[in-house]
Structures are given as C-alpha cells and as structure tokens.
C-alpha cells in the first residue's frame, strides 16, 4: 500500500494494496531513461579506456588520480545538494538537469584536446560536477512523472536503461580499440556523439516547466478548486519524521556498505578465475542489475519499498559471505557478482523513490539529493574504515567483520522501521505502509 503525503497528514491509510491503478510508464521517464543511457555510454566508454590512455598513450603515471578522485567525490556531493536546492527553488528541474548533462558533454569536447595530466583531471572533475548537478533534478522529474503507486517500478525502468548504457559503454570502447588499436580519439568522438544525443533527447523530448504548467492547467481545467501554483520551497518541509527516518536508515546501512572494489579484490585474491577476468567482473554485476531493476522496483511497490531497500542489503550480506567463504571456484565468484547486482537493483532506484515519496512536491529534488548524499557520504566513510581493517586484520578477517557489522545494521534497520512507523501498532506490519 502506498502511503502518500496526504495520507500521512491525515493519519490514516487510504486504501488497501495491491493498488488498482494499472501500471503505465510515462513517456517522460522513458525519455529520461534514454538520456541516461546515452550519457552512460558516453561516460563509461571514456572511463573504461582513460587509465589505458593516461598510462599507455600519454605516458603519465596515475599516482595523483586516486587523491583527486576523492576530492571530486566531495565536490560532487556538495553540488548535488546545491543543484537540488536550486532546482526546487525556481521549479527549474529541467534547466538544472540540462546544465548538468551539458557540463559533462562539454568535458568530452575538452578531452579531445587535453594531453597533460592537469587537463585530464580537470576534464574528469568537470564530468563529476555535471553528474552531481543532474542526478537529483532528474530523479525529481521521474518522481513527478510517475504514478505514485508505481514509483519504484518507474525508477526501475529508468535505472534499467541507465545500466544498459553503463554496460554498452565499456564494450563499445573496447570494440573500437580492438579495430583501431590507438583509436582513443575515436572513443572520445563516439562518446561525445552519445553525450550530444542524450542532451538532445533531454532538450527536445522532456517537458520543461512551462510545458508542464500548461499541461497541468489543461488537465485540471474542470476541477477549478485546485490551485495551479505550487507551495513554495522550504527546507523545513523536508524535516518530517519519514524523511528523518529514511536518512537515518540510509546512513546506518551506508556505513556498513564497503565499496564493491574491495569485494572484487577479495574475489580476485581467492580465485585465478577472478584474476583473469577482473576487468569483466563489473559487467556481471551490471547485467544482474539491469535485468532485476524493473522486477525489484515492482516488488517494492507491492511489498513495501523500505522492505525491499532493507532486503537489498540482505543480498549485499550474502555477497559478502560468498566472498568470505573459504571455498573457491567460479560459482562463488559469479554468485557474489549477481548478488551485488541484486543489491543495486533493490536499493538505488528504490532509495530515490522513497526520498521522492517522503518529500513534499516543492522540495523533491532537495529531498532526493539529501538521501543520495547521505548514502554517498556514509559509504565513503565505510570504505575508509574498511580499508583500515583490511590492513589491520587482513582481508579475510576484515571481510568477516564487515559481514557481522552489516548483519547487525540490518537488525537495527528492521527494528528502527518497525518501531517508528505509524501503523505498527494497528496489527498490520509497519513495513506494508511504505
């Protein structure tokens, strides 16, 4: 059952699930999915060959790259909040998204001419900033366009298209390099072309504010009681119990979510299978993600979004266990990869759906940005902490500690959700309400 914003205020559940509204995906979401697909082909094709280009062609080492990447992640988190706020303030989600996608596309043009290490890192930084800017306004537009009772499923459709792009990108890049061994500039040109296509789809097919207002006016012309103007943006609107709880939950689980780079390293140290196929490991995860994004989104809408979000972290726990078990062999490697895909499919779009659901209309982009920033920041701390454990205890023991911590956090998450949600005492499971 979907607990809408007005339901929460009214303090009662409106209707029993399953919802009677048939699922119909909005063309806006399909368009945004295609935008993300092209943009991901664009960014992932470059990301896949950039290390080769920097070391093999430019003859530079990449020592400073990791440090810079950390800084860029920080900048990205800050601009994410700022962009969400700006988008909400002026109701300019599309304009801010265009700015974000545009910056990343501009970075591709620059890449064609950049040869020094400084220039390359500036290009990557610009791309990251663009990504930080566009994500929250785009997810707010998805929330707005989706049917509320099918929100997570709608996000699933978007994330599926997005992941299709992230899978095609590296493959496309390596095919180009296979045909043209020094064809890095061809990869960059193809990447630029995909970036421009994404931007064109966004600019031409996704309705902006004026168009949306006109459509809305037409739609409610006969129900004159409703006002066309929206409530003004206010931070305090975001400071509601549901949102606080979601941020707390996401933060707790984020703090025990180590980067999957670590999981790949553990798998790689265990099995020669993983070492040989290391560059391809993430494709396995992506495939599981894109296949499961829609079904798990659908499940989240029916069974409860918080439930699926928490269960997704259960899949992550299973992936940790696959990595930590002494048994070796391809089955465990593949199992861990698929479970990681399940984790992403059950959490990424669902988190945006939850944050969108708990944010009032005028501050959706800010609410989504806040949730995504909490997750990014807590996962960053988790990776730093896990890195320390890695060297103190060795990789196997560190992995065991991470698994135990995740299991404990899962228990805490279930208790938190059960205790705090309204309706928990009414007999129904609290988790059903969301």
């Amino acid at each position, binding site marked *: 059952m979907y607990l809408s914003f007005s339901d929460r205020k009214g303090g009662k559940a409106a209707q029993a699930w399953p919802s009677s509204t048939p699922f119909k995906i909005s063309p806006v979401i399909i368009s945004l999915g295609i935008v993300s697909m092209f943009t991901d082909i664009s960014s*992932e094709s470059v*990301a*896949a060959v950039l290390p*080769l280009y920097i*070391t*093999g*062609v*430019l*003859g*530079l*080492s*990449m*020592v*400073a790259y*990791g440090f810079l*990447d*950390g800084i860029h992640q920080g900048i990205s988190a800050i601009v994410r909040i700022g962009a969400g706020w700006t988008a909400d303030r002026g109701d300019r989600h599309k304009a801010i998204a265009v700015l974000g996608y545009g910056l990343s596309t501009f970075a591709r043009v620059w890449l064609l001419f950049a*040869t*020094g*290490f*400084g220039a390359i*890192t500036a290009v990557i930084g610009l791309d990251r900033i663009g990504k930080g800017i566009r994500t929250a306004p785009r997810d707010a537009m998805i929330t707005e366009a989706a049917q509320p009772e099918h929100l997570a499923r709608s996000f699933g459709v978007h994330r599926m298209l997005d992941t299709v792009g992230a899978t095609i990108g590296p493959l496309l890049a*390596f095919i*180009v*390099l*296979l045909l043209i*061994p*020094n*064809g890095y*500039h*061809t990869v960059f*040109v*193809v990447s*630029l*072309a995909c970036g*421009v*296509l994404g931007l*064109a*789809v966004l600019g*031409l097919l996704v309705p902006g504010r004026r168009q949306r207002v006109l459509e809305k006016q037409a739609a409610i012309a006969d129900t004159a009681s409703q006002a066309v103007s929206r409530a003004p943006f206010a931070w305090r609107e975001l400071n509601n119990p549901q949102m606080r709880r979601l941020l707390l939950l996401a933060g707790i689980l984020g703090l025990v979510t180590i*980067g999957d*780079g*670590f999981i*790949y*390293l553990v798998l790689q140290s265990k099995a*020669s299978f993983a*070492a040989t*196929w*290391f*560059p391809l*490991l*993430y494709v396995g995860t*992506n495939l599981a993600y894109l296949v499961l994004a829609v079904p798990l989104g659908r499940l989240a809408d029916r069974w409860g979004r918080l439930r699926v979000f928490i269960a997704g972290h259960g899949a992550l726990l299973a992936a940790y266990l696959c990595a930590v078990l002494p048994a070796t062999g391809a089955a465990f490697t593949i199992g861990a990869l698929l479970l990681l895909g399940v984790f*992403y499919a059950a959490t990424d779009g669902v988190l945006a759906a939850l944050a969108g659901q708990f944010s009032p209309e005028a501050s959706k982009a800010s609410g989504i940005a806040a949730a995504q920033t909490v997750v990014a920041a807590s996962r*960053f701390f988790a*990776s730093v902490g896990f*890195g*320390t454990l*890695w*060297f103190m205890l060795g990789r196997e023991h560190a992995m065991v500690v991470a698994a135990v911590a995740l299991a404990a956090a899962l228990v805490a998450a279930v208790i938190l959700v059960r205790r705090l949600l309204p309706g928990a005492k009414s007999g129904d499971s609290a988790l059903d309400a969301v």
Partner: protein
Amino acid sequence: MSARTRMAWLAAITIVVLGAAVIYALWSYNQYQLRAQSASGVALSTDETWHTGPRIIFRNTAPGSGYGHVAMVPLEEPAGPRTVTEAVCDRVYAAAGTQMCLRTNAGIVTTFQAVRYDSQWREQQDYPLPGNPSRVRVSSDGQLFATTVFVTGHAYAPASFSTATVITKTAGGDHGNLEDFTLLVDGAPIAPVDRNVWGVTFTQDQNTFYATAASGQKTWLVRGDLAQRTLTSLRENAECPSLSPDGTKIAFKKNLKPGPTPFWNLAVLELDSNTETLLAQPRSIDDQAEWLNDSTLLYGLPREGAVGDEDVWSVGIESGAVPELLIEHAWSPSVLR
C-alpha cells in the same frame, strides 16, 4: 514547438551526430591501416651480428609498421638503425637472459599480462596482471622480476585507484603484493589505509631491493627485505628508484610541485654520503630511470606534439647536466651490458 517538430529536430540531430562519429571512426580506421602498412618512420637494421652484444632494448614508438614492438640498438650506436622484434609490449626490461614484457591485450575484455621471454624472444610463460602496466624490472641474475600495475576502478567503486606491485620468481612462485609487507617509517611500523608500493629496483643480492611506498600525499624511498617481508623508509619524496650498476647511487624522481599536478625531476642519491643531486630541467619526467653506465641516466619523455610517441633521453648525473636526445621514437629503455 509541436511534438512533430521536436521529433524532426531530434531525427536531424541524431543523423548529423551519428554520421559525423561514424565518418570520423572510418577515417581513423583508414589512417590506422595506412600507418600500420607504411614503412617504419625510422631506419631498420637487418645486421644481426651485434644482437648478443651490449645493446639497449626498448619499445619502438616510431609510426608505421612495428609500432609498439620491442626493438634494440647496439650500445655504441644508439641513434643508428634498430632491429624490431615480433614481441609487442607496453613496458620491457631484460637481464641475464630473462626478458620481461608487460602487455595489454585489447579485446571485448581487455586483459593485461606479463610475458617472460628467453634471450631469443621465445615466449616462456605468461602471468595475468590485474591492471594497466606501469613498471617492470628484472634482477641482475634474471631470477626475480617485479611488476607494477595500476589497478583502476570501475563504475561503482569510487576513489579506488591503487597500484599492485609483485615480485615473482622466474623459477616459479612469488613474494606476493608488496603492500602486504610491513612498512617501517622512521623505524616505526605504520599501516595506512591508502598505502601503495611501486617502482622496484633490485640489488646484486637475492634479498634486498628498493622501491617507493606512498600514503596520502607522501612518498618514501624504501629498502625492501624479501626474507623479513619489510619495507624500511630511507628518505621522503623519492619515487621510482633505480640503483646504479656499481650499487653506489640511486636515481629517483622527485616531486618539485606537490599538489594535484605534480612536476617531477630526476635526482641522484649517493648512498655512502647520503648526498642528493637534483638534475633540474624544464620538463617533468614521469619514468623510472635506467642507468646507461655509472654516470649517465636514461629516461623516456612523451614527444611534444605527438600522442602515443616518446623519445629516450640521456643525462649526466652532475648538477646542471644538459639532457640529450638519445633514441628517437622509443620508450622503456633497458640496457644490456
């Protein structure tokens, strides 16, 4: 704009953009084919009389056929015609009949490997590598070799850049990733999260080596001990060491501009007196130096105005020495005396 007009615009943009990308790809494919079939841009040698004598082997970066292949020139005539072998390598190093090659195998799945050749460039064994080739060195007796690669991230693993440096025994087995060795800085063991080790250089004995250890913005020249599995810091801000043939000096690259865009110059450390000489010059040098003899260093520099082409330079080890272009269109030099 009506929906129809929008779709028409989108179709037009798609055709123009994809058309331009395809035309560019076809053009560069043609350019590549032309270059690969054209004669090499440098003079080639067919004289095999010096192939077992003192020589420099390197990666040939001259445009045309043989690009990326291992090549060699006689030590006394480095600028003369070169012999190009069939081996294709990103980095190459050889000593005592052990010839090591780090290679990128482009494909739908791009993989990396170290390949060990014998002195006749016959493939002996290959070893999978977890990332992009960066450095390779062989011990003077040919019994050990060290590889450094960049293990790079992917879509979901932010900030995951790291190096993996492994010392392997030619006869079989290895000493594992040097990151797992105990790192002693100023006598005390430290275990920072982000530590990395790279750029090994071997000594004459079977146990001691030098390398770079790093954490945060700091780098250290470390002396490694294979039996004790320790890395002991000797000096801060010194990367990619290279021990001179007589074992008395270490050349390394020193970062003169800390921060996001480093600027490296070579420096030489006298081990007995602990005195450092900086070889200042206007271009940043990002390579592990190689000793031509006990008083001259070799290093690779990207060729200005050309992408994917480098030159090997030489420079004396006294302060103020002026670098000279030694081998054009070459990279990753290795001196066989």
